[in-house]
């Protein structure tokens, strides 16, 4: 409703025409001198953005509120709390609404378009961009087995058994035919990435299990898309022929591989674009986001798997983009992605709660209970059966504990709900939706809440918290080369051989195209080392004092004493040393001055970074001051190298 207060001008909203008195009135006002409206109220103008912002704000305030209540947030995962909030909000809106004579429920429901086009992509992009590639590729076979074969098994098992259940006289479900059951099975069978992320992020299990469950939830999108469309078409047509089934299989390959290809194309183009952003650093993050979103939308245009496209885009883009963009852009990308995905996740769960309250429900005890039981049973059977087969091919076998966590982590979420929402409006649709919501609630609440104590109870290995050290990096690379070499000696082309070939192809051709400047030839070890130095310098700045170095060991302790005398390196006189230092310092000042010219679109070198380079310089000087002249010579090389690396990192 609109309110016009203190508004002297006539308004014709809707089809309301002015009555003659009002017209006369307004005419009179036109002729008189009118007072200027100091304060007016016009809500319609900003209604839509206002509501959206209000929703997001409320959602985030809720999220904030949970962490202020310490006990609750330890026991109950955030997703559960958000759903409860959604239920409450939905209940409030419904209660308010039931007074109005308006028959249309204005409770916002989890609109499918809203979900698939706006809420889901940020979460998937965040997950895909930061996907641990090494673990993912090492376990790709296992993940694919679970995603494809496991989901197919789930869909057919649940669909088939539900049909059997529907045949029972007492259930009054006789009108649910086989194809509808299979359709239902295909909707409910897929493990949901949003729910898995929300729960697994809080329990910090080891990378192997995380990547198995999460990878499965990502890759089963293609299967879900194909099955869903397949059964939907069939349930309209009524019959299935062999050709249709065969076309379905072809469709699966097209959907998944097509999606991946689209993602790769956009990823490579995005990486190529980032090569030229040297002079427009401010818009660099946008390229990453836009190319990824375009990849998702383009895949959705052709009904290909948008999720796989998004993942492929992020994975393809990341190594090259990160070599090209500035450090600030990298931080921006990281934080914006985390921020967007966090907001999306919160909104999704709240909307789930609201939609539960809003939607029409048809509760059929048999149907719902059997759905829940069958979901659990089929998941367990699927995982155990598949692991039995997979373990014959794996070197590092999956233990019973692993299998349990994988089975238990098969959570259903909002994707199932949205797919159910997309169904054509029938009596069965509401029944299906009710069952889907019940399964979602069961998995998120019961499984989500109990998985943390179970993980503790079973003593499942947790995630390694510390970052990799330079030693581990050196030896990992050494080991990679060693294993490739041994494979070559033994004469068979295994996993390492192909990985090595891919790396070499990457280094010789791809990196040269997609990475600008000299970083295209920088070996991985050196970039790792530069990053590590940068991180250490930042830690020093943040801790404030530069005298507090982690340990008192310094170069002096490792430099072999006897060889010191034998070094033939000419010693630099103090004067020359001062010269070098002055040169380095003035270079630094020059760079600072260049950036001082103001422009709204330029990034000023902020005080943090000034301190950083100062501190790094001072740190080096302090270290140098402790040493003998000869060792100083050695360290000057170290100094200029890390300076080069550091300066480069800032640009």
């Amino acid at each position, binding site marked *: 409703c609109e309110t016009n207060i203190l508004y002297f001008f006539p308004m014709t909203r809707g089809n309301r025409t002015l009555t003659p008195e009002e017209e006369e009135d307004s005419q009179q006002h036109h002729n008189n001198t009118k007072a200027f409206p100091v304060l007016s109220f016009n809500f319609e103008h900003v209604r839509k953005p206002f509501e959206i912002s209000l929703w997001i704000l409320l959602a985030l305030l809720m999220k904030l509120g949970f962490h202020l209540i310490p006990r609750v947030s330890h026991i109950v995962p955030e997703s559960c709390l958000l759903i409860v909030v959604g239920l409450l909000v939905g209940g409030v809106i419904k209660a308010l609404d039931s007074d109005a004579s308006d028959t249309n429920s204005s409770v916002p429901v989890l609109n499918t378009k809203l979900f698939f086009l706006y809420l889901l992509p940020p979460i998937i992009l965040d997950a895909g961009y930061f996907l641990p590639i090494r673990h993912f590729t090492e376990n790709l076979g296992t993940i694919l087995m679970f995603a494809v074969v496991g989901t197919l098994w789930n869909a057919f098992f649940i669909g088939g058994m539900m049909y059997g259940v529907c045949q029972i006289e007492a259930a009054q479900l006789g009108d649910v035919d086989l194809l509808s059951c299979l359709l239902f099975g295909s909707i409910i069978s897929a493990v949901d990435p949003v729910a898995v992320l929300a729960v697994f992020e809080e329990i910090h299990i080891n990378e192997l299990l995380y990547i198995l469950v999460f990878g499965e939830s990502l890759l089963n999108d293609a299967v879900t898309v194909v099955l869903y469309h397949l059964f939907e078409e069939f349930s309209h047509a009524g019959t299935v022929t062999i050709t249709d089934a065969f076309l379905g299989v072809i469709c699966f390959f097209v959907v998944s591989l097509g999606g991946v290809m689209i993602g790769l194309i956009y990823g490579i183009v995005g990486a190529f674009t980032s090569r030229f952003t040297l002079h427009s650093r401010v818009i660099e993050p946008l390229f990453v986001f836009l190319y990824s979103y375009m990849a998702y939308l383009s895949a959705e245009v052709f009904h290909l798997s948008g999720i796989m496209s998004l993942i492929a885009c992020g994975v393809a883009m990341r190594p090259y983009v990160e070599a090209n963009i500035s450090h600030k852009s990298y931080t921006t990308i990281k934080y914006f992605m985390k921020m967007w995905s966090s907001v999306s996740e919160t909104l999704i769960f709240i909307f789930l709660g609201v939609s539960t309250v809003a939607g029409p429900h048809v509760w059929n005890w048999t149907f719902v209970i059997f759905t829940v039981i069958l979901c659990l049973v089929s998941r367990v059977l699927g995982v155990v059966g598949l692991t039995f087969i997979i373990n014959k091919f794996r070197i590092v076998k999956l233990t019973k504990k692993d299998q349990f966590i994988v089975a238990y982590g098969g959570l259903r979420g909002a994707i199932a709900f949205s797919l159910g929402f997309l169904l054509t409006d029938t009596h069965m649709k509401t029944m299906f939706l009710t069952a889907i919501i019940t399964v979602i609630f069961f998995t998120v609440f019961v499984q989500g809440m109990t998985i943390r104590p179970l993980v503790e109870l079973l003593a499942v290995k947790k995630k390694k918290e510390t970052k990799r050290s330079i030693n581990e990096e*050196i030896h990992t690379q050494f080991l990679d080369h060693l294993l490739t070499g041994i494979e070559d000696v033994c004469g068979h082309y295994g996993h390492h051989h192909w990985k090595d070939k891919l790396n070499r192809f990457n280094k010789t051709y791809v990196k040269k195209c997609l990475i600008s400047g000299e970083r295209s030839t920088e070996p991985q070890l050196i970039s790792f080392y530069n990053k590590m130095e940068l991180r250490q310098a930042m830690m020093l700045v943040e801790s404030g004092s530069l005298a507090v170095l982690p340990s008192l060991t310094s170069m002096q302790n490792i430099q072999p004493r006897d060889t010191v005398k034998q070094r033939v390196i000419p010693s630099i006189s103090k004067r020359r040393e001062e010269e070098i230092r002055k040169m380095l310092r003035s270079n630094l000042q020059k760079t600072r001055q260049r950036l001082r010219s103001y422009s709204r679109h330029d990034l000023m070198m902020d005080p943090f970074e000034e301190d950083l380079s100062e501190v790094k310089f001072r740190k080096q000087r302090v270290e140098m001051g402790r040493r003998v002249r000869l060792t100083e010579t050695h360290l000057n090389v170290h100094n200029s190298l890390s300076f080069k690396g550091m300066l480069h990192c800032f640009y």
Partner: protein
Amino acid sequence: MGTTQTRSENKYDDLVTKTGFSPEQIKNLHKRFQQLSENEETISKEHLHSIPALANNPIKKQIIDAFFDKRNQHQDEVGSFQEIGFEQFLMVLSHFRPPTLKMSEEDKARIRKEKLRFLFNMHDTDNDGTITLAEYRKVVEELLSKSGTMGIEAAKAIADAAMLGVASTNVPHMKPDEFYEGITFEHFEQILKGLEMETRMHIRFMDVNTTTMRCGKSTS
């Protein structure tokens, strides 16, 4: 034919117990050995150098030296062979066997120690029990050897930083005049604790008969 068959089986039995490979794997590796040695009894370094696929490997020399290193034969000898026979070949390769499912914690620890010992021997070229700064520098240089001139300067800095890391984790409070001799085996185990060598340092050995090089991608 019967006697030769039992004799070869007995010969393989001996190797099976010593190295832990299955008879099929040993048979396949023997075929490969004969391929490499051009049907002679022993192979020399030149035979291994001539493997084309190894040409691109930055640590090719270290790998080949490891095959001829007496320390890897578990017989408490030092030095290196000029030529090795099939048994020595198998002994070196046995360090890369994959872990089995049913292994006790002690077995796992023992195998991890063996594999780490192999790696340690590859770095400790003068066999003094420690990896000195010079040896470590050489390792990093070799790793970066295929990367041009940028590699050489950086290699020194990286090796120094890495050595500093080892020293500070293992001997945290060193006085300024104390000297860290080099990475001992215990320190080496300590820094690589997070990498789980017993599960990572292995390759897949073929059980099926493969006389020619198959382009099969192994799934994991």
